[in-house]
Protein backbone atom coordinates (compact mmCIF):
# COMPACT_ATOMS: atom_id res chain seq x y z
CA UNK A 1 0.00 0.00 0.00
CA UNK A 2 2.80 2.40 1.01
CA UNK A 3 4.55 1.73 -2.27
CA UNK A 4 1.38 2.52 -4.17
CA UNK A 5 0.96 5.82 -2.40
CA UNK A 6 4.57 6.65 -3.19
CA UNK A 7 4.09 5.74 -6.84
CA UNK A 8 1.04 7.91 -6.91
CA UNK A 9 3.03 10.83 -5.57
CA UNK A 10 5.84 10.32 -8.05
CA UNK A 11 3.35 10.02 -10.91
CA UNK A 12 1.77 13.23 -9.76
CA UNK A 13 5.05 15.11 -9.93
CA UNK A 14 5.88 13.72 -13.33
CA UNK A 15 2.47 14.77 -14.62
CA UNK A 16 2.85 18.24 -13.14
CA UNK A 17 6.26 18.40 -14.79
CA UNK A 18 4.75 17.62 -18.19
CA UNK A 19 2.15 20.34 -17.99
CA UNK A 20 4.93 22.79 -17.30
CA UNK A 21 6.91 21.63 -20.31
CA UNK A 22 4.17 22.42 -22.79
CA UNK A 23 3.48 25.80 -21.28
CA UNK A 24 1.18 28.02 -23.28
CA UNK A 25 3.01 30.52 -25.48
CA UNK A 26 0.49 33.17 -26.49
CA UNK A 27 0.90 34.54 -30.01
CA UNK A 28 -1.01 37.86 -30.29
CA UNK A 29 0.68 38.38 -33.68
CA UNK A 30 -1.61 35.72 -35.19
CA UNK A 31 -4.62 37.97 -34.60
CA UNK A 32 -5.56 40.09 -37.59
CA UNK A 33 -7.85 43.05 -37.28
CA UNK A 34 -8.20 46.49 -38.77
CA UNK A 35 -10.68 49.21 -38.00
CA UNK A 36 -13.33 49.55 -40.71
CA UNK A 37 -12.77 46.04 -42.04
CA UNK A 38 -15.33 43.37 -41.22
CA UNK A 39 -15.57 39.67 -41.97
CA UNK A 40 -17.21 38.76 -45.26
CA UNK A 41 -16.53 35.03 -45.12
CA UNK A 42 -13.99 32.41 -44.12
CA UNK A 43 -12.84 28.97 -45.21
CA UNK A 44 -10.09 26.43 -44.93
CA UNK A 45 -8.15 24.00 -47.07
CA UNK A 46 -7.38 20.66 -45.46
CA UNK A 47 -5.02 19.64 -48.29
CA UNK A 48 -2.88 22.76 -47.97
CA UNK A 49 -3.34 23.00 -44.17
CA UNK A 50 -4.38 26.63 -44.40
CA UNK A 51 -7.39 28.67 -43.44
CA UNK A 52 -8.48 32.09 -44.58
CA UNK A 53 -10.82 34.95 -43.81
CA UNK A 54 -11.94 37.56 -46.29
CA UNK A 55 -12.40 41.03 -44.81
CA UNK A 56 -13.87 44.04 -46.50
CA UNK A 57 -14.80 47.66 -45.87
CA UNK A 58 -18.43 48.82 -45.89
CA UNK A 59 -18.71 49.14 -49.67
CA UNK A 60 -17.21 45.71 -50.15
CA UNK A 61 -19.48 44.09 -47.57
CA UNK A 62 -22.72 45.46 -48.95
CA UNK A 63 -22.02 43.89 -52.25
CA UNK A 64 -22.47 40.17 -51.78
CA UNK A 65 -23.91 39.32 -55.16
CA UNK A 66 -24.94 35.86 -56.27
CA UNK A 67 -22.24 34.68 -58.62
CA UNK A 68 -19.47 37.26 -58.66
CA UNK A 69 -19.00 40.48 -56.70
CA UNK A 70 -19.16 43.60 -58.81
CA UNK A 71 -16.17 45.84 -58.44
CA UNK A 72 -17.07 49.29 -57.18
CA UNK A 73 -14.66 52.15 -56.63
CA UNK A 74 -13.70 52.52 -52.98
CA UNK A 75 -13.87 48.82 -52.16
CA UNK A 76 -11.07 47.39 -50.05
CA UNK A 77 -10.68 43.63 -49.61
CA UNK A 78 -8.10 41.88 -47.48
CA UNK A 79 -7.80 38.13 -47.72
CA UNK A 80 -5.76 36.79 -44.82
CA UNK A 81 -4.38 33.24 -45.00
CA UNK A 82 -3.04 31.40 -41.98
CA UNK A 83 -1.27 28.12 -41.56
CA UNK A 84 -3.64 25.64 -39.89
CA UNK A 85 -2.67 23.19 -37.15
CA UNK A 86 -4.40 20.66 -34.91
CA UNK A 87 -5.94 22.41 -31.91
CA UNK A 88 -3.41 21.75 -29.13
CA UNK A 89 -6.23 21.58 -26.57
CA UNK A 90 -8.84 19.43 -28.32
CA UNK A 91 -8.24 16.30 -30.36
CA UNK A 92 -10.46 16.58 -33.46
CA UNK A 93 -10.20 20.35 -33.74
CA UNK A 94 -8.08 22.54 -36.03
CA UNK A 95 -7.07 26.13 -35.42
CA UNK A 96 -5.21 28.84 -37.30
CA UNK A 97 -1.47 29.21 -36.65
CA UNK A 98 0.72 32.03 -38.02
CA UNK A 99 -0.29 34.43 -40.79
CA UNK A 100 1.17 33.37 -44.15
CA UNK A 101 -0.12 36.03 -46.52
CA UNK A 102 -2.36 39.08 -46.68
CA UNK A 103 -3.76 39.74 -50.15
CA UNK A 104 -4.98 43.28 -50.66
CA UNK A 105 -7.39 44.26 -53.39
CA UNK A 106 -8.33 47.92 -53.81
CA UNK A 107 -10.81 49.12 -56.37
CA UNK A 108 -10.61 52.65 -57.68
CA UNK A 109 -11.77 54.70 -60.63
CA UNK A 110 -9.53 56.24 -63.22
CA UNK A 111 -10.38 59.07 -65.62
CA UNK A 112 -13.26 57.99 -67.83
CA UNK A 113 -15.25 55.83 -65.37
CA UNK A 114 -12.91 52.90 -65.85
CA UNK A 115 -12.78 50.74 -62.77
CA UNK A 116 -9.23 49.91 -61.81
CA UNK A 117 -8.02 47.12 -59.53
CA UNK A 118 -4.87 47.23 -57.50
CA UNK A 119 -3.84 43.86 -56.11
CA UNK A 120 -0.77 42.84 -54.13
CA UNK A 121 0.33 40.25 -51.57
CA UNK A 122 2.24 40.84 -48.36
CA UNK A 123 3.60 38.50 -45.74
CA UNK A 124 3.08 39.12 -42.03
CA UNK A 125 6.15 41.42 -42.03
CA UNK A 126 4.54 43.60 -44.71
CA UNK A 127 7.09 42.52 -47.30
CA UNK A 128 5.56 42.43 -50.78
CA UNK A 129 5.62 39.01 -52.42
CA UNK A 130 6.01 38.66 -56.17
CA UNK A 131 3.07 37.33 -58.22
CA UNK A 132 2.87 37.23 -62.02
CA UNK A 133 -0.12 38.66 -63.88
CA UNK A 134 -2.02 35.43 -64.35
CA UNK A 135 -1.59 34.57 -60.67
CA UNK A 136 -2.93 38.00 -59.78
CA UNK A 137 -5.94 37.60 -62.06
CA UNK A 138 -6.82 34.21 -60.65
CA UNK A 139 -6.66 35.54 -57.08
CA UNK A 140 -8.85 38.53 -57.94
CA UNK A 141 -11.31 36.04 -59.41
CA UNK A 142 -11.14 33.96 -56.20
CA UNK A 143 -11.92 37.01 -54.07
CA UNK A 144 -14.79 38.05 -56.31
CA UNK A 145 -16.32 34.58 -56.14
CA UNK A 146 -16.53 34.53 -52.33
CA UNK A 147 -20.10 34.59 -51.10
CA UNK A 148 -20.76 36.26 -47.78
CA UNK A 149 -21.27 33.94 -44.80
CA UNK A 150 -24.71 33.99 -43.21
CA UNK A 151 -24.73 35.75 -39.86
CA UNK A 152 -27.77 35.91 -37.59
Amino acid sequence: MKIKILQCFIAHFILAGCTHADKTILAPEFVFGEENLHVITSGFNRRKSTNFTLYGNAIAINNGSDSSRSLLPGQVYKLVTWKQKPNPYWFGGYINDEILTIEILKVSQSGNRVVQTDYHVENSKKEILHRNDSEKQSRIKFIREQKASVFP
Partner: protein
Amino acid sequence: MFIDMNFFQSNSSRKLTGIILIILFAGLIGMQVATPSIQNPAVSGEFKAPKEIKSIFERSCYDCHSNETKLQWFDKLAPFSYMVAADVREARKRYNFSTWDSISPADQEVKLWYMVNMIEAGKMPLPQYTAVHRKARITDEELSLLKTYVTQLSHRNHGAGDTAKIKVVNKSIASRPKSINGISYFDDYKSWKVIASTNRLDNGTMRLVYGNDITVKAINEKTINPWPDGAIIVKVVWNMQPEDGEGTTKPGNFNNVQMMIKDSKKFTDTEGWGFARFNGLELKPYGNTVAFAVSCINCHRLVSKNGFVFDIPTRTPELAIK
Protein backbone atom coordinates in the same frame (compact mmCIF):
# COMPACT_ATOMS: atom_id res chain seq x y z
CA MET B 1 11.83 16.19 15.91
CA PHE B 2 9.43 17.66 18.41
CA ILE B 3 8.03 14.37 19.68
CA ASP B 4 9.31 13.50 23.12
CA MET B 5 10.16 9.83 22.81
CA ASN B 6 9.86 9.39 26.57
CA PHE B 7 6.20 10.22 26.30
CA PHE B 8 5.50 6.92 24.56
CA GLN B 9 7.53 5.02 27.08
CA SER B 10 5.65 6.31 30.08
CA ASN B 11 2.95 4.04 31.40
CA SER B 12 0.08 6.50 31.59
CA SER B 13 0.61 7.76 28.08
CA ARG B 14 0.69 4.18 26.81
CA LYS B 15 -2.71 3.67 28.29
CA LEU B 16 -3.94 6.90 26.67
CA THR B 17 -2.58 5.89 23.26
CA GLY B 18 -4.26 2.53 23.69
CA ILE B 19 -7.61 4.14 24.42
CA ILE B 20 -7.32 6.46 21.44
CA LEU B 21 -6.45 3.55 19.16
CA ILE B 22 -9.43 1.56 20.42
CA ILE B 23 -11.74 4.51 19.77
CA LEU B 24 -10.32 4.98 16.25
CA PHE B 25 -10.62 1.26 15.55
CA ALA B 26 -14.21 1.18 16.78
CA GLY B 27 -14.92 4.19 14.58
CA LEU B 28 -13.45 2.46 11.56
CA ILE B 29 -15.50 -0.67 12.26
CA GLY B 30 -18.56 1.50 12.64
CA MET B 31 -17.80 3.08 9.27
CA GLN B 32 -17.50 -0.39 7.71
CA VAL B 33 -20.95 -1.32 8.98
CA ALA B 34 -22.46 1.88 7.64
CA THR B 35 -20.38 1.77 4.48
CA PRO B 36 -22.35 2.81 1.37
CA SER B 37 -23.21 -0.08 -0.89
CA ILE B 38 -23.39 0.51 -4.61
CA GLN B 39 -26.47 -0.85 -6.37
CA ASN B 40 -26.27 -2.03 -9.96
CA PRO B 41 -29.62 -1.17 -11.59
CA ALA B 42 -30.62 -3.12 -14.70
CA VAL B 43 -28.81 -2.47 -17.96
CA SER B 44 -31.47 -0.94 -20.22
CA GLY B 45 -29.85 0.43 -23.37
CA GLU B 46 -26.32 -0.90 -23.54
CA PHE B 47 -23.50 0.87 -25.43
CA LYS B 48 -22.69 -0.82 -28.74
CA ALA B 49 -19.35 -0.72 -30.56
CA PRO B 50 -16.81 -3.11 -32.12
CA LYS B 51 -15.46 -5.53 -29.50
CA GLU B 52 -11.94 -4.08 -29.31
CA ILE B 53 -13.40 -0.62 -28.60
CA LYS B 54 -16.04 -1.72 -26.14
CA SER B 55 -13.59 -3.82 -24.15
CA ILE B 56 -11.40 -0.75 -23.52
CA PHE B 57 -14.32 1.12 -22.02
CA GLU B 58 -15.46 -1.95 -20.07
CA ARG B 59 -12.08 -2.39 -18.47
CA SER B 60 -11.36 1.30 -17.77
CA CYS B 61 -14.63 3.12 -17.36
CA TYR B 62 -17.47 0.71 -16.55
CA ASP B 63 -16.71 0.60 -12.81
CA CYS B 64 -18.00 4.16 -12.61
CA HIS B 65 -19.85 5.03 -15.83
CA SER B 66 -22.14 1.98 -16.02
CA ASN B 67 -24.53 -0.14 -13.97
CA GLU B 68 -21.96 -2.93 -14.03
CA THR B 69 -19.72 -1.67 -11.27
CA LYS B 70 -17.37 -4.43 -10.08
CA LEU B 71 -15.65 -3.36 -6.93
CA GLN B 72 -12.44 -4.79 -5.48
CA TRP B 73 -12.36 -5.71 -1.79
CA PHE B 74 -10.38 -2.58 -0.91
CA ASP B 75 -12.98 -0.36 -2.61
CA LYS B 76 -15.47 -1.65 -0.06
CA LEU B 77 -13.41 -0.56 2.95
CA ALA B 78 -14.18 2.70 4.65
CA PRO B 79 -13.13 5.43 4.20
CA PHE B 80 -12.41 4.56 0.52
CA SER B 81 -15.90 3.15 0.02
CA TYR B 82 -17.37 6.59 0.67
CA MET B 83 -15.26 8.22 -2.05
CA VAL B 84 -15.91 5.38 -4.49
CA ALA B 85 -19.67 5.60 -3.95
CA ALA B 86 -19.64 9.36 -4.52
CA ASP B 87 -17.57 8.98 -7.70
CA VAL B 88 -19.82 6.27 -9.11
CA ARG B 89 -22.94 8.30 -8.37
CA GLU B 90 -21.51 11.40 -10.10
CA ALA B 91 -20.03 9.43 -12.99
CA ARG B 92 -23.32 7.67 -13.80
CA LYS B 93 -25.10 11.01 -13.70
CA ARG B 94 -22.72 12.44 -16.32
CA TYR B 95 -23.18 9.54 -18.70
CA ASN B 96 -23.92 5.85 -18.35
CA PHE B 97 -22.89 3.12 -20.80
CA SER B 98 -25.79 0.97 -19.50
CA THR B 99 -28.44 3.52 -20.48
CA TRP B 100 -26.56 4.73 -23.57
CA ASP B 101 -29.67 4.48 -25.77
CA SER B 102 -31.46 7.08 -23.66
CA ILE B 103 -29.42 9.90 -25.24
CA SER B 104 -29.68 10.94 -28.89
CA PRO B 105 -27.10 9.72 -31.45
CA ALA B 106 -25.85 13.33 -31.74
CA ASP B 107 -25.28 13.52 -27.96
CA GLN B 108 -23.61 10.11 -28.05
CA GLU B 109 -21.16 11.41 -30.62
CA VAL B 110 -20.39 14.50 -28.50
CA LYS B 111 -19.82 12.30 -25.43
CA LEU B 112 -17.49 9.94 -27.30
CA TRP B 113 -15.22 12.83 -28.37
CA TYR B 114 -15.45 14.20 -24.84
CA MET B 115 -14.24 10.79 -23.55
CA VAL B 116 -11.30 10.63 -25.95
CA ASN B 117 -10.24 14.14 -24.97
CA MET B 118 -10.61 13.42 -21.24
CA ILE B 119 -8.40 10.36 -21.65
CA GLU B 120 -5.84 12.29 -23.68
CA ALA B 121 -5.73 15.03 -21.04
CA GLY B 122 -5.07 12.38 -18.37
CA LYS B 123 -8.28 13.26 -16.50
CA MET B 124 -10.04 9.92 -17.08
CA PRO B 125 -10.10 7.32 -15.74
CA LEU B 126 -9.70 9.27 -12.51
CA PRO B 127 -5.98 9.18 -11.59
CA GLN B 128 -6.73 8.29 -7.95
CA TYR B 129 -8.57 5.24 -9.30
CA THR B 130 -5.88 4.06 -11.72
CA ALA B 131 -3.28 4.47 -8.97
CA VAL B 132 -4.79 1.39 -7.33
CA HIS B 133 -6.64 -0.21 -10.27
CA ARG B 134 -3.64 -0.43 -12.55
CA LYS B 135 -5.40 -2.60 -15.11
CA ALA B 136 -7.77 0.28 -15.88
CA ARG B 137 -4.99 2.37 -17.38
CA ILE B 138 -5.31 3.18 -21.05
CA THR B 139 -2.24 2.61 -23.20
CA ASP B 140 -1.18 4.88 -26.06
CA GLU B 141 -2.18 2.18 -28.56
CA GLU B 142 -5.64 1.94 -27.04
CA LEU B 143 -6.04 5.71 -27.15
CA SER B 144 -5.15 5.76 -30.84
CA LEU B 145 -7.69 2.96 -31.47
CA LEU B 146 -10.33 5.13 -29.80
CA LYS B 147 -9.26 8.16 -31.83
CA THR B 148 -9.59 6.22 -35.07
CA TYR B 149 -12.99 4.94 -33.95
CA VAL B 150 -14.46 8.40 -33.23
CA THR B 151 -12.87 9.91 -36.35
CA GLN B 152 -14.47 7.24 -38.56
CA LEU B 153 -17.79 7.62 -36.79
CA SER B 154 -17.84 11.37 -37.40
CA HIS B 155 -16.62 10.97 -40.96
CA ARG B 156 -19.66 8.77 -41.63
CA ASN B 157 -21.94 11.34 -40.03
CA HIS B 158 -20.50 14.58 -41.43
CA GLY B 159 -18.03 13.65 -44.16
CA ALA B 160 -20.41 14.54 -46.99
CA GLY B 161 -20.82 18.09 -45.70
CA ASP B 162 -23.95 20.20 -45.48
CA THR B 163 -25.52 20.21 -48.93
CA ALA B 164 -28.78 21.86 -47.90
CA LYS B 165 -29.67 25.17 -49.49
CA ILE B 166 -28.22 27.98 -47.40
CA LYS B 167 -30.92 29.78 -45.45
CA VAL B 168 -30.67 33.49 -44.92
CA VAL B 169 -31.82 35.66 -42.05
CA ASN B 170 -35.50 36.15 -41.52
CA LYS B 171 -35.70 39.76 -40.39
CA SER B 172 -39.02 39.27 -38.60
CA ILE B 173 -37.37 37.30 -35.76
CA ALA B 174 -37.29 38.91 -32.32
CA SER B 175 -33.94 40.61 -32.32
CA ARG B 176 -32.61 39.97 -28.82
CA PRO B 177 -33.51 36.50 -27.53
CA LYS B 178 -32.57 35.98 -23.88
CA SER B 179 -30.87 32.96 -22.32
CA ILE B 180 -32.42 31.57 -19.12
CA ASN B 181 -29.48 32.96 -17.11
CA GLY B 182 -30.24 36.50 -18.28
CA ILE B 183 -27.63 36.83 -21.05
CA SER B 184 -29.22 38.38 -24.14
CA TYR B 185 -28.04 37.94 -27.71
CA PHE B 186 -26.19 40.98 -29.11
CA ASP B 187 -24.34 41.49 -32.35
CA ASP B 188 -21.64 44.00 -31.42
CA TYR B 189 -19.12 41.20 -31.97
CA LYS B 190 -19.38 41.72 -35.73
CA SER B 191 -17.05 44.71 -35.36
CA TRP B 192 -14.63 42.96 -32.96
CA LYS B 193 -11.39 41.20 -33.88
CA VAL B 194 -11.40 37.52 -34.73
CA ILE B 195 -9.03 35.85 -32.26
CA ALA B 196 -9.21 32.38 -33.80
CA SER B 197 -10.59 30.54 -36.77
CA THR B 198 -11.30 26.87 -36.14
CA ASN B 199 -13.02 23.81 -37.54
CA ARG B 200 -13.87 20.44 -36.11
CA LEU B 201 -13.87 16.94 -37.47
CA ASP B 202 -16.07 15.82 -34.61
CA ASN B 203 -19.17 17.66 -35.72
CA GLY B 204 -18.55 18.94 -39.23
CA THR B 205 -18.61 22.60 -38.28
CA MET B 206 -16.35 25.61 -38.71
CA ARG B 207 -16.14 28.60 -36.43
CA LEU B 208 -14.95 32.18 -36.04
CA VAL B 209 -14.12 33.25 -32.51
CA TYR B 210 -14.41 36.98 -31.79
CA GLY B 211 -12.98 38.84 -28.81
CA ASN B 212 -13.86 42.31 -27.53
CA ASP B 213 -11.15 44.91 -26.80
CA ILE B 214 -10.62 43.66 -23.24
CA THR B 215 -10.11 40.12 -24.56
CA VAL B 216 -7.64 41.21 -27.25
CA LYS B 217 -5.77 43.37 -24.73
CA ALA B 218 -5.50 40.42 -22.35
CA ILE B 219 -4.02 38.30 -25.16
CA ASN B 220 -1.56 41.08 -26.06
CA GLU B 221 -0.51 41.51 -22.45
CA LYS B 222 -0.57 37.75 -21.82
CA THR B 223 -2.81 38.06 -18.78
CA ILE B 224 -5.35 35.32 -19.47
CA ASN B 225 -5.25 33.32 -16.28
CA PRO B 226 -7.54 34.65 -14.98
CA TRP B 227 -9.06 36.67 -17.80
CA PRO B 228 -9.97 40.21 -16.71
CA ASP B 229 -13.58 41.04 -15.91
CA GLY B 230 -15.34 42.46 -18.94
CA ALA B 231 -13.69 40.05 -21.39
CA ILE B 232 -16.28 38.68 -23.84
CA ILE B 233 -15.73 35.91 -26.37
CA VAL B 234 -18.27 35.06 -29.06
CA LYS B 235 -18.05 31.98 -31.24
CA VAL B 236 -20.07 31.81 -34.46
CA VAL B 237 -20.60 28.27 -35.80
CA TRP B 238 -21.48 27.21 -39.35
CA ASN B 239 -21.97 23.78 -40.91
CA MET B 240 -19.30 22.92 -43.47
CA GLN B 241 -20.15 22.75 -47.14
CA PRO B 242 -18.69 19.82 -49.10
CA GLU B 243 -15.02 20.32 -50.04
CA ASP B 244 -14.59 21.75 -53.55
CA GLY B 245 -12.22 20.54 -56.29
CA GLU B 246 -9.33 22.59 -54.91
CA GLY B 247 -9.74 21.27 -51.38
CA THR B 248 -11.43 24.39 -50.05
CA THR B 249 -14.22 24.10 -47.51
CA LYS B 250 -16.63 26.98 -47.00
CA PRO B 251 -19.28 27.72 -44.39
CA GLY B 252 -22.79 26.56 -45.24
CA ASN B 253 -25.82 27.02 -43.03
CA PHE B 254 -25.46 29.04 -39.86
CA ASN B 255 -25.63 26.66 -36.89
CA ASN B 256 -25.35 28.54 -33.59
CA VAL B 257 -23.62 31.30 -31.67
CA GLN B 258 -22.01 30.81 -28.24
CA MET B 259 -20.86 33.39 -25.74
CA MET B 260 -18.59 33.59 -22.72
CA ILE B 261 -18.77 36.71 -20.57
CA LYS B 262 -16.27 37.21 -17.76
CA ASP B 263 -17.69 38.62 -14.53
CA SER B 264 -16.03 37.06 -11.52
CA LYS B 265 -18.62 38.44 -9.08
CA LYS B 266 -21.71 37.45 -11.02
CA PHE B 267 -20.88 34.00 -12.35
CA THR B 268 -19.33 32.47 -9.23
CA ASP B 269 -20.61 28.92 -9.91
CA THR B 270 -18.86 28.70 -13.27
CA GLU B 271 -15.36 30.05 -12.62
CA GLY B 272 -16.45 33.62 -13.33
CA TRP B 273 -17.61 32.91 -16.88
CA GLY B 274 -21.23 33.43 -17.94
CA PHE B 275 -22.24 31.09 -20.77
CA ALA B 276 -24.94 31.42 -23.40
CA ARG B 277 -25.79 29.66 -26.62
CA PHE B 278 -28.37 30.53 -29.28
CA ASN B 279 -29.32 27.90 -31.86
CA GLY B 280 -30.28 28.34 -35.49
CA LEU B 281 -31.19 31.51 -37.33
CA GLU B 282 -34.13 31.88 -34.96
CA LEU B 283 -31.48 32.12 -32.19
CA LYS B 284 -33.33 29.81 -29.83
CA PRO B 285 -31.74 30.08 -26.37
CA TYR B 286 -30.14 26.81 -25.25
CA GLY B 287 -30.68 25.36 -21.76
CA ASN B 288 -33.83 24.64 -19.76
CA THR B 289 -32.43 25.52 -16.34
CA VAL B 290 -29.63 27.89 -15.34
CA ALA B 291 -27.59 24.77 -14.49
CA PHE B 292 -26.88 24.26 -18.23
CA ALA B 293 -23.83 26.47 -17.77
CA VAL B 294 -22.32 23.94 -15.36
CA SER B 295 -22.07 21.45 -18.21
CA CYS B 296 -20.34 24.14 -20.30
CA ILE B 297 -17.72 24.91 -17.65
CA ASN B 298 -17.17 21.21 -16.83
CA CYS B 299 -15.77 20.60 -20.30
CA HIS B 300 -13.96 23.96 -20.41
CA ARG B 301 -12.11 22.88 -17.25
CA LEU B 302 -9.90 20.86 -19.60
CA VAL B 303 -8.19 24.19 -20.31
CA SER B 304 -8.13 25.64 -16.79
CA LYS B 305 -4.53 26.71 -17.40
CA ASN B 306 -5.78 29.03 -20.18
CA GLY B 307 -8.41 30.58 -17.95
CA PHE B 308 -10.96 28.03 -19.31
CA VAL B 309 -10.70 29.19 -22.94
CA PHE B 310 -9.77 26.73 -25.70
CA ASP B 311 -9.35 28.93 -28.76
CA ILE B 312 -6.44 31.22 -28.09
CA PRO B 313 -3.65 31.99 -30.54
CA THR B 314 -0.61 30.02 -29.42
CA ARG B 315 2.79 29.31 -30.82
CA THR B 316 3.87 25.69 -30.80
CA PRO B 317 7.08 25.45 -28.78
CA GLU B 318 10.03 24.33 -30.90
CA LEU B 319 10.87 21.49 -28.56
CA ALA B 320 7.52 20.47 -27.15
CA ILE B 321 7.89 17.59 -24.73
CA LYS B 322 4.73 15.50 -24.68
